[in-house]
Every structure is written in C-alpha cells, then in structure tokens.
C-alpha cells in the first residue's frame, strides 16, 4: 500500500472481496495495481459487475462513461474515487 491514497480499510476490503468473488486472483494486488489489462485485467463485463456491486453495497453509481475510466485506474485510485462518491452522497446506501 505504498502510495498512501488514504482509502479506508473498508473500501479496500470491499474491492478485494469483490474481485475474489468475481473469480479474479488478488494475490499480490495492492493499491498500485491497475484494474485493467496491466494488472487485475478486468474487462467490460467485470467492470460493469464491479459497478453494480458498488451500487448494491454503497448506493452510489458510476455512470456508463465513467465505467470506461475505471478500467484505467489502479485499485487505490478507484477506492479514492469511490470514497469521494460516497462522501458526496451521504444519505445513500446505508
């Protein structure tokens, strides 16, 4: 967890747990690991699934044009974006 993106343990655990449930290997995955081809290797449908898992768990959504952007993020960047989205919608989800 070298970059210190400041994502919470809860969000990190959610992301890694989701990837595990989606049958991706998370061995060696940390905040610096890209979600896309150079890292976890999520493809279009798995990014979509991550999106619906976020919506089900936290009640916030990433729009379709943002979903493409998620594929270019690292785990840490995604966690930070998710944390910001949750903070901006405090009533959502819980």
């Amino acid at each position: 967890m070298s970059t210190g993106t400041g994502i919470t343990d809860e969000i990190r655990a959610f992301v890694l747990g989701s990837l595990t449930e989606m049958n991706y290997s998370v061995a060696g995955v940390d905040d610096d690991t890209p979600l896309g081809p150079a890292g976890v290797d999520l493809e279009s449908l798995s990014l979509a699934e991550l999106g619906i898992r976020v919506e089900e768990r936290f009640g916030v959504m990433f729009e379709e044009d943002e979903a493409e952007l998620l594929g270019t993020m690292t785990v840490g960047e995604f966690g930070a974006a998710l944390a910001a989205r949750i903070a901006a919608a405090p009533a959502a989800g819980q």
Partner: protein
Amino acid sequence: MKDVVVSGMGMVTPVGCSAGEVWGAMCEGRSGIGRPEAGSLLDGSVEVAAFGPAIEPESVLSGPEARVVDRYIVMALRAAADALADAGIEVGRDVDPYRIGVILSGTGGLATLEAQVVTRTQRGRLGVSPYLLPGMLPNMGAARVAIRHGIRGYSSSIATACAAGAQSVGEGLRLLRAGEADVVVAGCSEAPLFPTLADTFGNARALARGWADDPTGASRPFDRRRNGLVLGEGAGVLVLERAEHADARGAAGYASVLGWGATNDAHHPTTPHPEGEGAAACMRLALADAGLEPADIGYVNAHGTSTKIGDRAEALAIRRVFGPDTPPVSGTKAVTGHMLGASGVVESAVAVLALRRGLLPPTYNLDDPDPACDLDHIRKSPRPAPHIGQVMSNSFGFGGHNVSLVYGLPGTRLSRAV
C-alpha cells in the same frame, strides 16, 4: 469430389467422455441413469435422470467467465476441444481460420436463467449478473467454441429441439458440399437437468414414472413396459471435413456423411404424427440424398426415446420406408437417457462406430418388444454385422422436426482405426 467425412469426435455423456467408453457402455448395457442426489435441486422433480460427468468450468474458461456460465457451454467447449484434438486440427495450422465453421446447437442455458430469476426475486435488480447473456444464450456454445479455437468462418446455432444436433450435422454437410468451408465443427450440447424444465416435462406426462427402485430400467425403447423418457444431459461434436482437405493433410476419416433429410410433421407442437408420416418422408429424403435404396442400410440407430407414442410412430415409419425386411434397429437412449438435441450427434457417432466395428449395439431393457413396434430389434447383446455398408441415425424433435443422417465407409484415402 464432394465427399464429406467425419474426421473427429468429441462427447460428454452420462456413460463417458470418449468414443471407447460410450461404445463399451452401449454394448455391455452399462447405464448412465440414476436417482438424483437426495436434497439436490432435482430431487422431487424427477425420479431418475442421466447425469453427465462433473466438469470444472475453470477447466475450459477463465476464472471470471467460468462463474456465470451454463453447464451446456462447459460441456460444449469440452466436446469441441476433444473433437478438434481427435481430428488433429489446430486452426491456422491445419485449416484457414476463415475456412472452418462451427454449428453448435441446443436449447440454451435455461438453468442459468432460472437461477438468475431466483436471485432477482430475492435481491432485486442488482442481483442480476452482467454475465447472464454470454453465459446462457443458445448461440454462446458456438460463439465460445469460435473464440477458444479462433474459428472465423460460418457460425450458427439451430433451435429445432431434439433434432438440433442431427440438423447441425446436416447443415454442416450442406456447407461443405457447397464448398463454403473446408471443415465444420458440428454438434449440440444440452443441460436440461434443472427443476423448471424437469417439472414441465413431468407435468406433461412425458417422463418415465415408477422406476425409482430400478433406475437403469427406466429408459426402455420399444419395450411393452416403456412409459416415458429419461432426461439426460450431454454434448456431442463431430468434426466434418471435405475428404479432399482431409487427404491433403494426411488425415484419416471415420466415415463419410453420405446424405441427410429434414422434414416437419406439420401435425402437433409436441406429439409426432401417429403413423410416422413425416419421419418416413425424412428417411426417404436422406436415402435419396445419399443415392441409396432402403436395402443399402444395414443398421438404424433409432430416435427411440421410450415414449409410448413416439416409439410406435418411429417403428411404423421405419416399416413404411424399409418394408418387411427392415434393417436391424436399436435405441441407445436406453443407457444414455435422452440428451435432447445432443443425442443426435452422440448417436451418429455410435452409428459410425457400429459401421466401422461391424458390431451393432443392442437396445438395453428391451425385454418384451411391443408388438406395435414390430422391427428387427437388436436385443440383449451386440449383433455382429461385418458387412453392413451404410447406417442411418434418426432424430425427431418437439415441433415435429425430423432429421435423418446416413453414413458410409470413409471416402478419404486413410481410414481411421476404431
């Protein structure tokens, strides 16, 4: 030279995954039919069923894709990979990617849809997987096989119920004769062992009943005590190849696909024509397409599902076509159960093996032939038939779809050892 040969076989069946295993089970009466596990999803829906072997989805697909994928696709991928390996074909090395096609048929992954409907009912909209369609659509068997092997030519899936597998072979033959491909991977995969489908078959009174204590006796084509079909799961794939193409790469054929016929009863959505009129016309078309007379056929692998009306209609149809001297007939669903559309491909392979081995597999459980099904039945044990020449395989489906296929000795220079 428009000769088309079978140059590879792959199958996943309740009686094994190789030609040798399947052949052995049929000749020795080793049944693939049993009771569902107590407490399993099917327990309470069917008394008996024919379960195929367990195959880990991860053995044919990447982890994330293996998670929401129907069993029909897993079996299709396994059978197709085995068939291509059996034919010694690597796409790009042995055949131009645009000169090989795939026709892989079936009902689709309805069990996976059923499971997602349950999840949606419990969890709402967000419970539905984005992977559902690629995991269950009926064309995804063909698509996944194309993706896995780099098959870039013609591809399709046929939805003619229990005739779909045989029809895939017939359409493959048509493509190859027309010169539109050099190789066609033709097959069908069916995974019908889930509650909703089993329940509708059961409620329609189509399933064998009263065999819970004697599961291996439940499927008994042409027998007086038959009272319905036994649902089974499985996949069958044949590699069809222009004989010239096979010769050019030094490959040996199992058999030639000599001809096929396809008709529709135009009678009833689920019940066959009682006199087997459409089925008889279908067999005649197949003979004519092959340039043969009825007397040229030395063995018929019947559709024979073990239903009262279906077996009788088929027996009448065979009589109408072949007259008093019908060729020897057997129904091998007695040991495999009814793998729906996949049956036609597995049974084609069985008919080809019978042709090549000069040995005809019996109809297991045919203890007391129904007088209404008056045929030259092969019973109890395999019947030697060293010079049978040509063989026929019949497949008839809900919707009145009929397909007959005729096979003969291979037209390739080399003949595949069996």
